[in-house]
């Protein structure tokens, strides 16, 4: 029981200290999980992170679940996941309650209209980063273009897009392997 509480506490602390999750969390994980508690080696941590990127869901949560599972099996996995989401729940719920009361103020509207422009830039940068790491060849450009057109002009569910593109990727790769 103490071990589970410790897993919860350590990941809640890391969750409360990282902005943005994902790879911004790696240095903190390395310091606490690898150096201080010695729950995994650095190589294992990088492996867990790489695998989590390939899985559905939130990368940071997937990573800590793998660490928690290595420590204490399924209960460890749950303790780690709950620890990771705990700070988000508390902080976001408090902010949401407050913002609702402030939204009517004109100053706040101006502020959020400015923030919208910043968010636009962040989302564009995220798309560019994904493009450079994920679109490698002509087929990739085609998949991107077709997906963008289909998603912009028809109200397709993103779920269908995810499934269809994954299946297309498998078929194209397998055909390439058999012909070469």
């Amino acid at each position: 029981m103490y071990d589970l509480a410790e897993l919860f506490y350590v990941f809640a602390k890391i969750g409360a200290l990282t902005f943005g999750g994902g790879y911004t969390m790696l240095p903190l994980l390395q310091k606490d999980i690898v150096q201080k508690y010695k729950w995994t080696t650095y190589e294992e941590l990088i492996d867990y992170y790489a695998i989590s990127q390939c899985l559905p869901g939130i990368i940071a949560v997937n990573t800590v679940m793998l660490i928690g599972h290595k420590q204490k099996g399924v209960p460890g996995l749950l303790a780690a996941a709950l620890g990771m989401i705990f700070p988000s729940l508390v902080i976001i719920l408090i902010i949401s309650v407050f913002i609702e009361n402030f939204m009517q103020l004109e100053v706040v509207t101006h502020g959020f209209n400015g923030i919208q422009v910043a968010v636009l830039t962040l989302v564009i940068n995220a798309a560019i980063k994904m493009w450079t790491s994920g679109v490698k060849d002509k087929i990739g450009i085609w998949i991107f273009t077709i997906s963008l057109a289909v998603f912009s002009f028809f109200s397709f569910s993103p779920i269908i897009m995810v499934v269809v593109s994954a299946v297309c990727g498998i078929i194209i790769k397998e055909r390439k392997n058999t012909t070469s």
Partner: protein
Amino acid sequence: MWNYHKRKEEHNIMIYWQLFYEFFKIGLFSIGGGLATLPFLYELADKYSWFSREMLINMIAISESTPGPIGVNMATNAGYSAGGIGGGIIATLALITPSIFIIMFIVKILDNFKENHFVQGAFYGLRPAVTALIASAAIGIFKIAILNMPLYSTTGNLMDAIQYKQLILFFLLVFATNKFSNIHSVYFIGASAVVGVIFKF
């Protein structure tokens, strides 16, 4: 009075079920981290009256400026808009529920998961499509943040369609975020809020 409360409670429980179902699906199908859940939340904005697309932009700003994984913060935020504090908790738990089962399965085949050719093939197709989903979300935000479609549709004057103050800030931010990529986005968000207040966006 009692009847009213009872009905409200039933209404809430239905929202909780819908939230759980929708966020479970998001947890199961969103791949790529960070803003990967955004296209799914856009779909929810259109499907339910829980929150608008414009409110989603504010949620992104809050999620990027507060600690914790962005996807988790977005779920808590969106869940709260739909069903209060209970809604925020349920949406967040639903989001991570599929991962719990997936991880329990993956640890059994961990060693050769990433090298598996089916997994690599799937990602070969997935990555460009997910990039397109995020790009399409960016176009949606551009329409709300930079353009002024309501004013344009009443005046019919193309010059009214663009909010120039916002456009200038946008160009400055594109330059600044790429030039100073080591500065955390929370500072750009804060600075933009100040600019918005001073120049009355």
